[in-house]
């Protein structure tokens, strides 16, 4: 079997859609099978996964933490569309300073980036898989 590189484009919100969970399961299966996840891109409603303040009940899966864990284990890039994120209240320290806001909530391990990261990923990966709502 040849190794393939994937880009995952996650556009569905956690809890409101199955997108981040399906993508997580896909990523684990792909990595286990020896494939590469070149980049994970969060776009549209998918950006809300990067909210550090999400507190789901303890007996439910915490999707943000699960993604952080997988990313740390496999050095995955968790990239978040900056325009989509700011619009939906997902903001890092730098952007908070720029907009004069007191708080920021981008979870550790996620980075705000431009759409160019998705385009670059799509251009270089063997396959881009979208997980939507």
């Amino acid at each position, binding site marked *: 079997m040849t190794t393939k590189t994937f880009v995952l484009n996650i556009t569905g919100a956690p809890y409101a859609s199955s997108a981040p969970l399906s993508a997580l399961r896909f990523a684990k299966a792909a990595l286990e099978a020896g494939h590469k996840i070149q980049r994970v891109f969060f*776009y*549209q409603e998918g950006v809300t996964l990067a909210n550090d303040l999400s507190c789901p009940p303890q007996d439910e899966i915490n999707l943000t933490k699960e993604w952080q864990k997988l990313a740390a284990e496999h050095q995955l890039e968790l990239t978040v569309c900056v*325009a989509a994120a700011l619009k939906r209240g997902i903001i890092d320290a730098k952007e908070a300073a720029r907009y004069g806001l007191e708080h920021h909530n981008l979870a550790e391990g996620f980075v705000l980036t431009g759409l*160019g990261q998705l*385009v670059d990923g*799509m*251009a270089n990966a063997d396959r881009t898989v979208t997980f939507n709502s």
Partner: protein
Amino acid sequence: MKTNNFFDLLVVFTQPPLTASLAKEGLDLALVNSTFEQRTGLIFLGAGTLQLQQNQQPDILALKGTQAMLQALALYDIDQIFVEEQALQDYGLLAADLLLTVEVCNTEKLQQKIAASRNLLTF
């Protein structure tokens, strides 16, 4: 990766205007894709064809609309724009009355376009 495909990306629009940020986010992506010198085409399907209607007044709803972005496509060298023939009939639209110059495609032709693209993203 080497490819013989005609398009690097086709962006498909399926939602009517003034409903959500979807169409804007699809157009954003198409524009960025083109600035990265990726061959980009657009497909308007079903209610998505309504995005191309002229004389929309989004400001009445305190919305921004996508007309300006659509008109800017040519500046980004995006001129491969395909519209579903059946949708035009369903909504009583004529290609000549649309905001942009488009190629009207039947289902078979659309399938050929999609098959000729490395990537496909639907909004």
